[in-house]
């Protein structure tokens, strides 16, 4: 056991970790940041995606001890400073890009990373980029639509949006 310190959502945070403690466990159990979810044990589903030093990372694949000093952003740190939803979060609500909400944190973090890298992706690029994030509820249609909408593109031909 040892203490690990990271800057999480802009604040320095410290919690214990064993050598085998995963970043996802450290965030959830150590810091109580339960917005990051764990949906599998083979790094396939992407529910646990967070940003580490600006890059999207499956937090169930990273060891907390390796990341002492890292800068981490989780879903809890995605809203605007005034507490309102950020553009990508708002697009998920406006276009019904989530149902049960379990894959949503990872999906939002992955989508935010995509738009940083590629501000105006095509539909095919969105689908390809999100290939590492599994959603069982939405059939991806409205997730893709939300990401395209968040990038400022017209999605009016892709079905009903919230009123």
């Amino acid at each position, binding site marked *: 056991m040892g203490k690990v310190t990271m800057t999480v959502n802009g604040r320095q945070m410290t919690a214990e970790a064993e050598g085998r403690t995963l970043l996802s466990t450290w965030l959830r159990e150590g810091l109580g940041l339960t917005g990051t979810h764990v949906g599998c044990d083979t790094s396939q589903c992407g529910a646990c995606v967070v940003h580490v030093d600006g890059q999207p990372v499956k937090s169930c694949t990273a060891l907390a001890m390796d990341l002492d000093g890292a800068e981490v952003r989780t879903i809890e740190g995605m809203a605007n400073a005034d507490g309102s939803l950020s553009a990508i979060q708002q697009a998920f609500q406006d276009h019904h890009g989530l149902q*049960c909400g379990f894959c949503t944190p990872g999906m939002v973090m992955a989508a935010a990373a995509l738009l940083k890298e590629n501000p105006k992706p095509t539909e095919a690029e969105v689908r390809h980029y999100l290939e590492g994030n599994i959603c069982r509820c939405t059939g991806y249609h*409205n997730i893709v639509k939300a990401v395209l909408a968040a990038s400022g593109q017209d999605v009016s031909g892709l079905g009903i949006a919230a009123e």
Partner: protein
Amino acid sequence: MPKDGIGASTKRREDLRFLTGNGKYTDDINLRGQAFVHFLRSDVAHGRINGIDTTVAADMPGVLRIFTAADFESAGGLPCGWQVTDKHGQPMQEPKHPILAEGKVRHVGDPIAAVVAETAEQARDAAEAIEVDIEELPAVIDMKAALAEGAPKVHDELTSNLCYDWGFVEENKAAVDEAFDKAAHVVSLELVNNRLVANPMEPRVAVGDYDPWGDQSTLYTTSQNPHVIRLLMGAFVLNIPEHKLRVVAPDVGGGFGSKIYHYAEEAFCTFAARALKRPVKWTCSRSEAFISDAQGRDHRTKMELALDADHNFTAIRTETYANMGAYLSTFAPSIPTWLHGTLMAGNYRTPLIYVNVKAVFTNTVPVDAYRGAGRPEATYQLERIIDKAARDLGVDPIALRRQNFIKPDQYPYQTPVAVVYDTGNYDATMDKLLEITDHAGFAARAAESANRGKLRGFGVASYIEACGIAPSNLVGQLGARAGLYESATIRVNATGSISVYTGSHSHGQGHETTFAQVVADMIGVDASTIEIHHGDTSNSPMGMGTYGSRSLAVGGSAIVRATNKVVDKAKKIAAHLLECAPEDIELKDGKFSVAGTDKSVDWSGVTLAAYVPHNYPLEDLEPGLEETAFYDPSNFTYPAGAYGCEVEIDPETGKVDIVGFAAADDFGNVVNPMIVEGQVHGGLAQGIGQALMENCVFDDSGQLLSGSFMDYAMPRADDFPGFKVDHSCNTPCTHNPLGVKGCGEAGAIGSPPAVVNAVIDALHRAGHTHVSHIDMPLTPSRVWAAMQK
């Protein structure tokens, strides 16, 4: 109508917490003093337990106690909620399903022992140190082999591995056989409905808690129906009366059926918390979910259709083997029977139908309802054989369907398989489908594909499902050991805000938004003043939960009924305040007025009077404004529609690409169109996933070969195009107050045959006319192999 009333695509209020990391799922619950359990599970499919040595494990760091079957002698087995009667009038064979394996293990994943320790890691470490002496026995995996003379028995105390041999309608069998003898054409197909794993993204979790103050047990669990868990676990397993047992299902990350059932881990955590006087938590890993969550489908069917010389359907005969797995999961026996045989008429006027189902025990993970549950299997058989019939007879598959559709002037329509359809219009949804798929442009698209060396095909499927489950008196006659009503309490608060308590459970369906729309619409207040509470047996009346696309049709109807009671009473209060007769009071836009006058009192004026009854008819009316209603449906609802799939096949590899998919559904009235679309999208992904990629496979020894997301192909974002969905062809349900039918399962029911029909169509257009069928999933290797013959 208020802005967020019935028919509005209101934004989902629950999204705010889910999008900010503030959802509260069961694994997010951590109680003071909590211990953790790890289950040691069988790694063989069938074996005799000769001994369990926990000596070393018990001394490992942090270990509090190790449990085995011996600790559960006072407990019952996990109950089965539906007793099917076989074709001879005998009850099904119903083996005990213990919490921890007793004497034998019967599938890979069967729990043998449970270690409770201070941390999850310590529990897991200690479980590895338990020595189990298991004498491996020959396993039965294949259903037909399991029924062979002398096959090893999954349950020694049963006469065989046959759970039941069910005939429906048994009295019609001779007439059906005769119709086949006289038929001008008989078409037959052997079909596999592949075993699936539901895989909601949130794995199951259970946290048991015990408070000696008041002798209260609480279970937090990932359930679609917490009241049902309380009833089953309390009454049949642990002998804890309802008033001493609370079950909470907070935010639940998807279910698709797999979180309906009462599972051993729930009973274990509740039991262990009482034994240890500490909260006990279990968090399932995905690998563990693959061998402990009930799975879906797994039917083998011989399907036959008889037609007369004019191509009218005259009879249907089916023989299905349905895999139960090693134990009977909570509703398993009802799925291949009452949720399958009763749908075998589909959208068609087939006068004679006989369905035979043999349910079989095997050394595999238990099988139960998965999205659609029995209805996808029925639809797949019908819609595949109609396509084959059209091909054999050289007629258009859409025209053959239309010729045999039940027509709009034939409702109510009594099918030969017990159910009575109340309403529908199958030509209308077929017309709409052909419009939104641009069917007229298919030939040009096929030519363009051919130019690129690809094979293009188009397939359709019609479907009908029985939802809004279910009339209690009817299901009682059919063997259900539960009623299938729903309840609601409307608690109007003094200042006019409204707390709604429902027995339905939302795990992605958006009830908190849609149910509030219904109440807002009825009273005329802003939806933001209404809160929907669900998932806690301590605050809502008895509920039956969410499955079978029943929440709005049954739960919503209970809410309507309770709201009507509230409005009736509120009108009496308003009449007193306005000094008129209650019959003269009108409620509109949240205001009570006296008909034909300008006298009025607003909603909050009435609600305040109900709780501060200074000027109140106390001699005639109780203070307060809270009503409870139960709603028991008088019939099922019958959503129906037409689905169309366009595929492109790469002849070099056999890879199938879905290049277009459209759904035209009749869900009756729609409360929130945006949410309905989302439900269809999700169902389509699961149905197309079944058709093209998902497959749960056990090897001959019973080892699960598809035991992780690396082996079990979950559909991903780049596996599909966008979907076109339409629900404008509505025939409202005639027997519930909202006129709604349910939309949760349709996508998964209608899509698999549409995909397979499209692939067969593409192969035939390319000259591979010898291919009459390929079993799901239509993986590149299967499609390629079929093309080579």
